């Protein structure tokens, strides 16, 4: 059987710019508030009433020719057999070369122990609300929305001193599910699957529509493709 080559297609015409993908990603992968594995670019043009608005969801492009991988001195950042760009936190030395090499700004560095807000004893409104620490303690987890399933293939919460990024929810894909951002999208704008399977949703979408990628000139050969245009039929 041919090797899998996972990819995602984002249909900008279907996208409504609700950012449900961003929130689902945070909850699924225990991503700190200030990090954005799933992110978006917002563009506003023109002067009222002649204005246009564009919303481009972004994430790690799981590039075929990934500079984060080629530059990593420890092979902590690596290409999996199935085309995903993954990160082994146990090998990472925190040199941040991958962050410098990635043109898309999708890698985040844990300068401090993450989720500081859930170790803070200061209540948001003293005498009226819990402090972050109390909330985490009552939830019995490092953070109230902690998802233990994430820890199947990557540390549930990444430690201080290492980088982290989107993994295409490899832990879900491994058990036959789709990435959290795909499942959460209320507009079915995200299609995930194996590009080597002509019947897969992304392969079919790419056969029908002209695919575009971010910063094509960088030569990274992204595996996240964009079809159609936000707000245009």
């Amino acid at each position, binding site marked *: 059987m041919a090797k899998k080559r996972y990819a995602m297609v984002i249909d900008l015409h279907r996208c409504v710019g609700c950012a449900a993908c961003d929130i689902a990603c945070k909850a699924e992968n225990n991503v700190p508030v200030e990090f954005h594995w799933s992110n978006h670019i917002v563009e506003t043009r023109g002067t009222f009433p002649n204005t246009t608005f564009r919303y481009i969801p972004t994430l790690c492009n799981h590039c075929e020719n990934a500079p984060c991988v080629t530059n990593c001195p420890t092979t902590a950042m690596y290409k999996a057999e199935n085309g995903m760009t993954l990160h082994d936190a146990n090998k990472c030395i925190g040199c941040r070369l991958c962050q410098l*090499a990635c043109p898309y700004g999708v890698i985040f560095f844990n300068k401090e122990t993450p989720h500081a807000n859930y170790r803070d004893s200061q209540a948001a409104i003293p005498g009226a609300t819990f402090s972050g620490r109390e909330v985490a303690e009552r939830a019995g987890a490092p953070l109230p929305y902690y998802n233990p399933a994430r820890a199947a293939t990557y540390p549930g919460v990444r430690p201080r001193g290492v980088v982290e990024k989107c993994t295409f929810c490899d832990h879900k894909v491994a058990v036959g599910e789709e990435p959290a951002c795909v499942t959460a999208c209320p507009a079915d704008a995200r299609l995930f699957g194996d590009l080597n399977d002509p019947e897969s949703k992304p392969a079919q979408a790419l056969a029908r529509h002209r695919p575009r990628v971010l910063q094509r000139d960088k030569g990274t050969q992204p595996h996240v493709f964009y079809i159609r245009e936000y707000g245009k039929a």
Partner: protein
Amino acid sequence: METELILTLQRGLIWDERVVGDLFLGGVGVGAFLFAFLLWRFAEERYQPLAKVAAVIAPVSVSAGLGLLFWKLGNKLNVHQMMLNVSPTSVMWWGALIQGAFVTLSALFAFRLLFPHVRLPKVLSASVTGVLGVPFAVAVGIYHGLLLAVLTSHPLWASGPMIVTSVLLFTVTGVAASLLLYVVLRSFVRFDTGPSDTFAQGLKPVAWVLIAGAALLLITLFAWWVDLRFGSIPARLALQAMLAEYGIMLAVFGIGFGLVLPIVLGVLMLPRFGDGRTPSAALVGLACLLLLIGGFTIRYAAVIGGQLPTPLSVMATLS
């Protein structure tokens, strides 16, 4: 209204002053080693104290730079992973190997120069460690340029002149640091290898190397500017951003005080090398100090200025 773009990225510098320090000190060490080797191999006896000073600078400076880089690592306890995992596509991985070998060889070379009478196996002689150290020194110098030049997401770094600048910087700063330290030491320590007043007379070729190196650096910086100014849109924007933030610093300390003034001082001093006359040690020291300040400023502007955020108009390009 103009186009407004929003994308929330992680803030702050990725590589800070510690990396600037690593690259600067690495360059100084490599240049000092090559200078020491050439003096030891080809210069008269009266220049051997200078060769010793330069030889000691080499491993100390490169190790100090590596120390800064180590300090910068987020997960220091994992550093052994670089040795456990082979990553031949990574310039940094090669850099770790090459620098490790260089520090060992240059430390042995310095030891042999300082203690020639200590009995050691022949394979650890100054000739063997020196000759083996030369290609590693050149490789470390090129590595420092290549480390940045391969990061094509940073147009300021991904250019040919960046590598040339690195090579020229190690030549100039290595020699300047050795001479400066020697001049300073000479005011405290008496080197008994001949009359010290005739010492500077023979340094005319070294003065030429420094003047030519500084002049070539000026030309390379100009080539770097042309490359970016007339390059792709991201390159132009990156240059603009860097100059807006660090342009004055680069012009004043990197080019004015750091290259042009030492060249002028060097040219003025040239006739004083020879004919029984010597240039003032203070003036030689000052020219060297200025070159070091210039070298550090250029590294600083390139490393820190090269990381200014990519314009969102570039990041949002779909094609």
